[in-house]
């Protein structure tokens, strides 16, 4: 490797990262992950829940949550090929270099659940931004009481990180419950919405910190179920999504009421969003 190019300190200028490994997570790669390493050798330190702006040469930039372990070497991102940039990125192979700006945004306050139950509620691809919180809880497992991962997705084929989920459930002290909207032959697990897993309980609502990530509709129902079960709004965190261009608070795109998702979020304590959460087209 040639000497790394020195990188400007300007937060609008990306750093170079090499794709060390690119692999399909779901199907033929509609959802895929990258393991990245910095060309300049300086690791990118982040907190669970934060995101980076990923840049593909000449194509553009997209905000993508970090899906890897904050306390392990390497940077892992999980992407869904759904827009122009993420579809182009799907074609990139190991060895290619992309630009990375970040990390940006607020983090899952995992430490807040120390001495209490931790309930992680994920919907669909929303498991990816929550995975760093899972890693964090598992690394410091003795600091928490029960730890739940409640995960709902569309169908068995779409289950993200399937082997890892099985490993967590079988080997580690993590209550993993997975449910799908549509079962199928060979599926012997739960069928139904993720909110039902919340209703089944097993955690102490007054001493629980909950974190939800997924489509906005799913989070709305998840929060309602958590509240119905007795978890206060001040103990629930959600991760929001809006269009984003600069990630540092001045392009204006990610506004959500008074908030800038890029710097005030993406992780918000639910009570701070409650007044606007149900306002349409905000």
């Amino acid at each position, binding site marked *: 490797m040639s000497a790394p190019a020195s990188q400007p300190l300007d937060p609008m200028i990306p750093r170079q990262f090499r794709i060390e490994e690119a692999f399909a997570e779901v199907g033929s790669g509609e959802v895929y992950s990258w393991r990245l390493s910095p060309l300049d050798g300086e690791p990118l330190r982040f907190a669970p829940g934060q995101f980076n702006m990923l840049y593909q040469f000449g194509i553009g930039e997209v905000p993508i949550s970090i899906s890897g372990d904050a306390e392990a070497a390497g940077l892992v991102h999980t992407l869904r090929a759904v827009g122009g940039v993420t579809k182009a990125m799907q074609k990139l192979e190991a060895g290619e270099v992309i630009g990375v700006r970040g990390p940006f945004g607020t983090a899952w306050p995992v430490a807040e659940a120390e001495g209490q139950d931790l309930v992680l509620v994920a919907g669909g*691809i929303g498991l990816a931004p929550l995975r760093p919180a899972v890693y964090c809880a598992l690394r410091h497992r003795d600091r928490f009481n029960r730890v739940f991962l409640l995960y709902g997705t569309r169908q068995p084929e779409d289950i993200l990180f399937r082997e890892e989920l099985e490993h967590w459930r079988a080997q580690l002290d993590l209550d993993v419950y997975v449910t799908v909207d549509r079962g199928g032959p060979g599926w012997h697990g739960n069928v139904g919405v993720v909110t039902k897993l919340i209703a089944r309980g097993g955690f102490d609502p007054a001493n629980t910190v909950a974190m939800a990530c997924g489509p906005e509709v799913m989070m709305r129902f998840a929060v309602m179920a958590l509240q119905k079960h007795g978890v206060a709004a001040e103990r629930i965190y959600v991760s929001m999504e809006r269009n984003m261009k600069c990630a540092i608070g001045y392009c204006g795109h990610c506004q959500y009421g008074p908030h800038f998702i890029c710097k005030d979020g993406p992780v918000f304590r639910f009570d701070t969003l409650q007044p606007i959460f149900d306002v349409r087209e905000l």
Partner: protein
Amino acid sequence: MDMLAAIKAEPFFEGIPEKELALLADCGEAGTFPTGAWLLRQHAPAKHFYLLTGGLVELKAFVPQRGVVTLETLGVHEPLGWSWLVPPYQWHYDARTLEPTTALVFDAVRLRHEMEADHEFGFQLQRRVIDIMAQRLQAIRMQSLDVYGLPGGAFL
């Protein structure tokens, strides 16, 4: 097993007065079912009301050309079906255990009789079933939105 204590431990019955709880205890018994047991069969008379206390049960429908489709799975604290409370008191779907399952099993014929005889008791039970029906309807609506089929979720 103390049936009254088991009933009191279920959130479903929370708030029901002591006298009615005793009546419920008198109408029910604890049941244990191995994996693969059929709890409900389509069109069979709905003679029992199952409240699950552990395990997992799948509610299944047979669809011509598609075979057996799992509509929903039910687990701890969840009632299995409401056809025992709605004429013609026949199960609409099949239900089979996916794992060893435990339940409180009530005599539905007797419950219906007691509910008719004592409307206060009937109201207490019926409003809990309505709550469950509302939750299931909400869940089905949420599923019909197919939220994971649309792009969504944080940044992806």
